Structure formats: C-alpha cells, structure tokens
C-alpha cells in the first residue's frame, strides 16, 4: 500500500492501516526517541505518545513532504515535551561547566555502530544531549535551537561544541578499548 493510500485508510480509522503505518515507522522512530531519553522505557513512552499524536493529527499532514519526516518532527517535539515534563530530565537541562572536557581532535579513529553511538549520545549530560541531537542529527541551526529551548544561540553553540568534544573523546576511548579487546581476542 502506498503512503497516500495508507494515510487515507488511517484517516478512515481502519485499525489495520494504523497498524501498518505503525509497523512501517516504529523502528526508526524508536531510534529517534532512544537518543533523547535515558531509558528504553522512557523512549517507548515517547514513541507511544508520539504515535497517538500522529494518528490524531494525521488529517493535517499536507502530503507535500515525506511522511517519515513529518512523523519524525512530531517525535522530536514529543521527546522535548517529555523531557520538560519530567523532573528527572529538567535538572540536566540547565547547562553547567561540570562536564567540560578539553577539545580533542574530531576524527574518530574508527567508526562505531549506530547503537553504540546512540548509547554514547545518551550518556551526555541532558542539556548537551538535546542540543547535540537537535543540531548534529536533526539539522537545526543554533538560532532555531536557542528559540526552541529558550536559550541564546551562543549558549547553544558553546554547548554543542562541548558536547561534540566530549562525544569524540568518548568515541576515541571506546574505539581504542574495542581495538584492544579485539587484539587481545586474537
């Protein structure tokens, strides 16, 4: 079933079409939610909330752009709302220097897998994590991020730089350990 027809069927409220749409995008969208949250349970909560919004507002999808991109945007916004709503995430949203690390060379020695990279991103402080996801993965500019989060674009820029450095350090460290264990295995 092509996307337009699938959307039309979903708008008619057919459970089978809704299930099909969910199956089509659930895996990718959980990957998005996973990056913004600290636990799989939270990620699934965001996914559930996001899909309810998707089905509820599907009539407003203009069918001009990619359906996946539209759903992704809803997921990102749902995740941000989720972080704001839950106190455990709120504290990390205020940006401090305690996680600052020295700038390192940003050419990771070895590329790591998606799941490993996502896990490293999730280990970033909450404020860094959000800004890194929004800028590096979703592609928002710092001005946009600043307006979304109620911070200045300068803050967003500096936080991103620190998040990036921290992540590269971790990736290097992770890759080195991985390489070491691989040699040890041989």
């Amino acid at each position, binding site marked *: 079933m092509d996307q337009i027809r699938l959307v039309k069927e979903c708008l008619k409220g057919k459970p089978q079409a*809704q299930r099909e749409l969910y199956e089509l995008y659930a895996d990718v969208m959980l990957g998005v939610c996973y990056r913004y949250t600290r636990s799989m349970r939270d990620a*699934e909560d965001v*996914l559930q909330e996001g899909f309810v919004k998707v089905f509820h507002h599907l009539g407003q999808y203009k069918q001009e752009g990619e359906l996946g991109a539209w759903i992704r945007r809803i997921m990102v916004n749902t995740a941000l709302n989720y972080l704001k709503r839950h106190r455990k995430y709120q504290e990390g949203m205020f940006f401090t220097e305690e996680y600052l690390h020295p700038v390192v060379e940003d050419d990771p020695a070895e590329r790591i897998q998606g799941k490993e990279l996502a896990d490293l991103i999730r280990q970033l402080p909450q404020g860094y994590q959000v800004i890194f996801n929004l800028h590096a993965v979703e592609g928002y500019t710092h001005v946009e991020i600043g307006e979304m989060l109620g911070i200045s674009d300068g803050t967003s820029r500096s936080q991103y730089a620190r998040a990036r450095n921290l992540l590269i350090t971790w990736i290097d460290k992770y890759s080195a350990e991985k390489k070491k264990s691989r040699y040890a295995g041989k």
Partner: protein
Amino acid sequence: MQENKFEKQVREEMEEFRIRPSATVWESVEEELRRKKRRRVVVYWFLLAAIGLGAYGVYHLLAPALPEPSTPISLQKKQSTDQAASSADQHTPNRQISTGLPANGSGAGNKPTDNIVSSTTKNNIGIAVNSNDRKFSVQEADRAQLETTSRKTGKNKSETHKQAIAGNASGRQLSGKPISTPVNKNESAKTNTRTLNISSPVALNPVENKETGKLAQTEAAAEESQTDATASIADHDLVKDSSTVSNNHQDLPENPRTPITVSRRRIQWRIEAGIGAGNRMDKALPSLFAAEKLMDVNNLPAYGAVNGGIPAPRPLLLPSESKVSVGFKVGVQASIPVGRKINLLAGLRYSYRSDRIAVGGLLDSSIVAPPGLSNNPLGTANRAYQYQGAPHQSVTNSYHFIQLPVQWQLQLNKGRVMPITWEIGVTPGWLIHTNAMVYDTSYYGIYYRDKEAFSRFQLHAETGFSLHLGNKSKWRWSIGPEFNFALTPLIRNAYDPRQFLLYGGLRAQIQIPGRR
C-alpha cells in the same frame, strides 16, 4: 570541514539506527486511540441528546398546550376513533336505559329505534351478536329500564314492566350489547356513535324530555347524524370524559358539565438568562480532574550565569495573571416536579465566559521559525502568530459553550407566594469556540492561539439561589445569585496551571405561560 565530516558520520549512523519496540507499545497506542474514539462517540451522543432536547423543547412550545385542570371538558375535541369505541363501551348502561324508554311513549317513540335497526341492516354493519348475549342483555335492559321508569314515573311496577316489554319488542337490537360483540374496527365507532346519538339525550334526562315532540326531534337529528360518522364521533367524544353523559348538548344547555381533573405531571418551561463575571483559577475549588502541569514554571531555578563561563539564558516570562472578565448565558430550562418541594431542572443553554491576560508583542512566527521548531507537534501550523516579549497589551480570552444543565431545585421556605429555592447540579458542556491564548515556555515564554489544545468536553458544577415572584400572575419569574466552577481543566497538559473557569453572577428566569 572536519565538523561537517563528523556530523555527516553521526547523521548517517543515526538514520540507519533502528530499534524494535516491544509489543506493549502498539497495544498502548491502540488502547489510547480506542479511548479517544469512545470519547468522540460520547460527544456525538451528547450532541444528539442536546439536539433531541432542543427539538422537544421547540415541539412543546409550538404544539397546542394541554388544557388547564379547570378547563371545561366540552373543549376537548381530540380523541381517536378507537378511544371513541371504547368509551362508548363505558356508556352501555345509559344506552340500555334509553332503549327501553320509548316503551312508555306512543308508537312515535318506537319509530326511531326501528329506523336505526333498519338502517344498521341497510348499511351492512357487521355486528355479530351472539344470540345468548343478546338475550341476556335484553333481559338486563328490561330490568334496568323497569326500575328506572318506575322510579321516574311512579307507575306500578308490573304495569311498567308490561309496557317495557312491549316497547322492547322493536328496540331490543339496540340494547343488545353491541359493544361487547366482535365488531369491525372501522365500523364500530360508527355504530356506537349512532347508538349514542339516539339514546343518550333521552337517557340523560328522561324527565326533562317528556315532550314527545322534543324526543322525536332529537331522534330525527340522530337519523341525520348517521350519515356523518365523524361528527357523531366528535360529539361522542364530548360525552366520553363526562360523568354527565350529554351527547346533544345543544339541546340540553342547562345540563351542568362536570370539570375533569388532569392528573398528569406538568412540565414548566422557562427562559433563563444570566450575567456575571468569571476568571480562570488554579484549582481554587475542588475539581474532579487535575490539570497536569508540564513544568512548574513558578519554581524554576534562578537564571543567570552558572559557574561563570556560560552565557546565561534569558529569563523565562511567567504566565500572565488572569483577570476577571464578563460572562453571560441564555437558554431554556424545563422544570419537572418530582416532589412537593423538589423539582428537577434540565435545559439547554449557550454560555459565554472570558478572562483577561497581558501578553507581549505580536510576532509572525511562521517567518521567524521554520516548521518543526515549536514544541507543538504540528510545528508552526497552529501558531503562525505568537505573542512574545514583555507583556504590555491586554487580551480577552473568550470561551463559548453549549451546555446541558441538570439541577435539583429545593424549596427552602414554606410560603407559596414568594418561594425561595436552592439549585445545585452539574452542567456538562461543549466548548464550541475559543480564541484563548495558550502559554508555552519556548521562546522565553510565549502566548499563541491553538484551538486544538483545549478539551472540548467541559464539566461544570453549579449552584445558586432563586427568589420566585409573580406566582399568582400569568408571568412567573425568579431571580437570584449563582456560582459555577469547572470540574475539568481547559487544557490538560498545560504550562499555565490556571485552567479552571470560575463564574459568579445573577440569574433570572421567566416561566413560559401555558396556552389556555
């Protein structure tokens, strides 16, 4: 350049990154969708009920009113043919008596009876009379007639009996219990009516109809009336509800008409209107549902540079204070008595509420922020314009409701002249339109319009007192204070916790007088 390379690598990895969610996620999504569907169904039923109630109200207002308890029965003209037939049944004893009466008259008195018998036969009216029944009823009629005539005329009983037997030789078929026999439904009314037309006048006041000429005239009129069954039925209907059986009431103007008592419980319709003031509160009164706050914006940590180095974010503008603004309502209400001092009130009304807030400057956010930036899942689609910055202008949030108030009304005092009542109840309603602003913490605290954010179904609690005036006049009315507070929040997940509407005002009702 290097930055781009790193971001590109990350983006590529993340685009391919997928995790299979557990089965419970879809089950939860499905359950949530079902729940919303159920809620929609409830709303449709609610609207249907509102339309039904409205339609009933309109019907009741436009339809002819029921007669007042003291209305003379002669004005009641609406009865069905079946009812006519059954009511004729009730008057069988009169018929029997009257049938026997011609016996004490001359041959002229018997003539009409013969005519009727013959005309009945001529018209092929299918009255299947059981011969045994007929005999029995003839005997009964004879006996009854015997007693009646002997009482009225004071004649010797045996003499009267003889005359009665003689008279009944031709009149038996009329007294022969036609109602209890299986009768073609369409023709039964005709037959019964015909019977009544003849018999009733004589039966009612045998003494008054002593004049043979009068009797003959009446019976001649009865013959004519055979051709017009409808008219006869109408006349018969006049007789039906009366204890004084009077068919040809024009002939008997002196015959008193007994009023009937309408025991039916009366619904009183009122037009209500009210005016007052309202505001939005933060759970100021007990509420069934709490508005879940997305973030306690009033208790955020102090803003500023933390540990020196990082530029501090701009301070967040907190939600504006909500100020009191005008509200009014207008509608119809039915009052159904359920006890001596207790009434059940139900109605349909339009209600307007408002409150005032201060907001910043208007900004076209669709230009400033590309779609997808807002916290709203639909991006800027619903908030192309937003109010941002220091609050400097006052905006009125208006809410338009269609409500179905259901209340108990209890009379507090004993008097009937100026009763004081206390009303309490719940008012489910539907938010049909609003221009209210929604607060959001993004962009340092903004206001924007988003109708979708509001819960359409709203439940309010209502109480008030009324002083009823003009109870002895045609136009009864009442006036008194009322208070209304929301049990459901306007927005469930709101940054601004003030989501409960509160209203207080003066209400007046005027009772629609029934048609007489």
